[in-house]
């Protein structure tokens, strides 16, 4: 009989725990569902459930599960129950091709949708293109500009020219002021999304006749943004366009306030300033920033079904360690499946080409409003909102559930307030 000392037994237990944890992350993540007499319709995807984008990825998954439960309650797709097959991409783009290869060859899923964010959408494209699958994309910025894939459909309302439409509102707002701003600083993370956003901002700045006085990127592991903000301050730009990820956005906001950056219009493409966890802590330091968003509780954005969905989301999000409000990504994560599901039921088949043709040629009612696609798979009309933080205090999160804290300035159709200008005052 083999005997182990207490220490070695403990080490073995530790090893077993590690092994179990590894299996948890490596195994396909599927909720157990009751056995159904009918073969389920399997929808496959990767999702960032660990790593830097997990905060948003997990919130998206909750929204997707709400849709799955809703559709199954309503009889499923083509009368068959819907089942998810998904894997954690660990916010690591290099895992994505393998995941989609497995989904399509071993798991034999019927439909695929993308994981969250540009860096995770792009690596999946060659795989889904080789199988001619319809590919619903969740917040990939300008991904299809490289691939020109006809069966790609993007739920993020960036518009038909996503690279430049993304920041068009920011520059339109700036150039509508008197006197007109003359100079702009561009700064962003050294990553796919931010580079795309900066390319578009550069285009818009040149179109507006603005002089670009600062145009630089920073690496992912930047701990302090004070030197960057001071370098921008030294150029005295009228406008500052920032394309940043959540930790950087928080670092930028703090550095901007500490340095006292004297710009007239500031923000644009800061990811994270839509997240409840950051909003509640950054509080009043956000006031005056003009930034992109996709849904805020303003009276102009009461789309059919969105509030009902958010109630469900907020109930499910309790105790999950995810965004408790769910305004940013979850409605769109629900909508891209809602759109795909409605198309399947309308076409009456899982034929990928018929589905793509249907999605391309119809207007779709979703919880984020009516969606019509341009030939490149982006929304035919841009709706990347530009919102300004106004009257925010340090009282915490509850204030953001009311109108008036993030007023919509652009597009005109959805406008709910007026700009406080210039930022530095």
């Amino acid at each position, binding site marked *: 009989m083999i005997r182990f000392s207490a220490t070695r037994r403990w080490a073995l237990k*530790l090893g077993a725990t590690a092994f179990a944890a590894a299996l948890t992350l490596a195994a396909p993540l599927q909720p157990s569902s009751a056995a159904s007499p009918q073969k389920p319709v399997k929808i496959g995807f990767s999702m960032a459930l660990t790593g830097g984008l*997990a905060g948003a990825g997990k919130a998206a998954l909750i929204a997707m599960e709400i849709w799955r439960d809703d559709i199954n309650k309503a009889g499923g797709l083509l009368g068959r129950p819907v089942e998810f097959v998904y894997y954690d991409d660990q916010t690591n783009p290099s895992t994505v091709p393998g995941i989609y290869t497995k989904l399509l060859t071993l798991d034999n899923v019927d439909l695929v949708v993308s994981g969250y964010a540009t860096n995770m959408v792009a690596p999946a494209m060659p795989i889904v293109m080789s199988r001619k699958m319809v590919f619903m994309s969740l917040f990939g910025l300008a991904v299809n500009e490289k691939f020109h894939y006809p069966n790609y459909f993007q739920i993020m309302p960036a518009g038909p020219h996503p690279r430049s439409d993304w920041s068009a509102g920011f520059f339109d707002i700036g150039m509508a002021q008197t006197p007109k701003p003359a100079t702009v600083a561009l700064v962003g993370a050294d990553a796919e999304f931010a580079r795309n956003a900066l390319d578009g901002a550069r285009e818009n700045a040149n179109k507006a006749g603005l002089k670009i006085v600062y145009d630089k990127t920073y690496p992912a*592991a930047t701990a302090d943004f004070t030197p960057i903000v001071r370098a921008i301050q030294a150029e005295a730009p009228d406008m500052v366009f920032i394309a940043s990820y959540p930790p950087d956005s928080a670092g930028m906001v703090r550095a901007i306030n500490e340095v006292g950056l004297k710009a007239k219009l500031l923000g644009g493409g800061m990811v994270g300033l839509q997240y409840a966890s950051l909003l509640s802590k950054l509080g009043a330091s956000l006031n005056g920033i003009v930034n992109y968003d996709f849904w805020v509780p303003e009276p102009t954005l009461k789309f059919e079904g969105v509030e009902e969905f958010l109630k469900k989301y907020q109930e499910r999000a309790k105790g999950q360690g995810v965004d408790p409000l769910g305004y940013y990504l979850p409605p769109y994560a629900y909508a891209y499946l809602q759109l795909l599901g409605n198309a399947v039921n309308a076409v009456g088949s899982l034929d990928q080409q018929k589905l793509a043709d249907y999605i391309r040629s119809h207007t779709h009612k979703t919880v984020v409003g009516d969606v019509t696609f341009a030939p490149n798979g982006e929304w035919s009309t841009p709706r990347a909102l530009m919102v300004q933080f106004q009257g925010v205090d340090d009282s915490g999160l509850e204030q953001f559930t009311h109108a008036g804290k993030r007023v919509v300035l652009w597009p005109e159709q959805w406008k709910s307030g007026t700009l406080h200008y210039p930022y530095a005052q």
Partner: protein
Amino acid sequence: MLDLFLNALAAGVLLGGFYAAVTIGLTISFGQLDIVNIAHPAFIVLGSFCTFVLHEHLGLDPVLAGVLLTPVFFCIGVGLYSVYYASFERRGDETLRGLAFFFGIMFILEVLLIMTFGVDYRLVETAYIGQAIHIGPVGLPFRMLVPFAVAMATAGAIYLYLSKTFTGRAILAVAQDRLALQLMGADPVRTKQIAFGIGLATTAIAGSLLIMLGPVEPSLGRLYIGRVFAIVVLGGMGSIGGTIVAAIILGVVESMVATFYGPSWAPAVAFGFLLVTLAVRPAGLFGR
């Protein structure tokens, strides 16, 4: 231009202080004990989350929370070394298997944090975060000034402990000559246990500083692995003073490059400086 230079210099020194805080524990475990604790940054993130809990539920200042957590982390360190010694070091298996062990610990910590706290970002807000003091043209944000002061205080306390106490001197000796240490009547395993405990205790303080700087999430530690090991090597593997100097040099180089040339080049220039230094002084700045 002079104002910009002075501000870049000040920002670099403060950033270096923060780098020193996150590295100093590794200087002991890796530099002095030869234990490749790749999970060191993961423990810093654990410290951040524990600080968040104490700050959120008890209203404790982050730095105070970090200090209060140090005994707990010290005990974790002592326990962890005991397992590491019994499983690997005692049998001479520490080189690769020990590295795998700490890699596993890092992985488990991340998963435990995700299971406990979820994946959302956490950060803390205090009255002084977001404020800055101005000395002439130089602005010093408290968000960076406090970590710098805490890092210097921690480094000073560790330096005094190592140089003025019997156990401290035993820790300095154990990496050099175990047999001589035993002849002096000190138990090398016990000494290493204490040393590793101290190294890990500093991650509680470093974690409290990290969450003051910006939002944290469970996998954030991965971003710091390269940097902290580089600072230990640059400082001269085990020198507390060397770690402080190396961290400040790295901080100043990064800040200067970010200010005057472009932030995307900052890590490349900083690590280029490391390579040049090692080419000239293979033992690091303060290495013997």
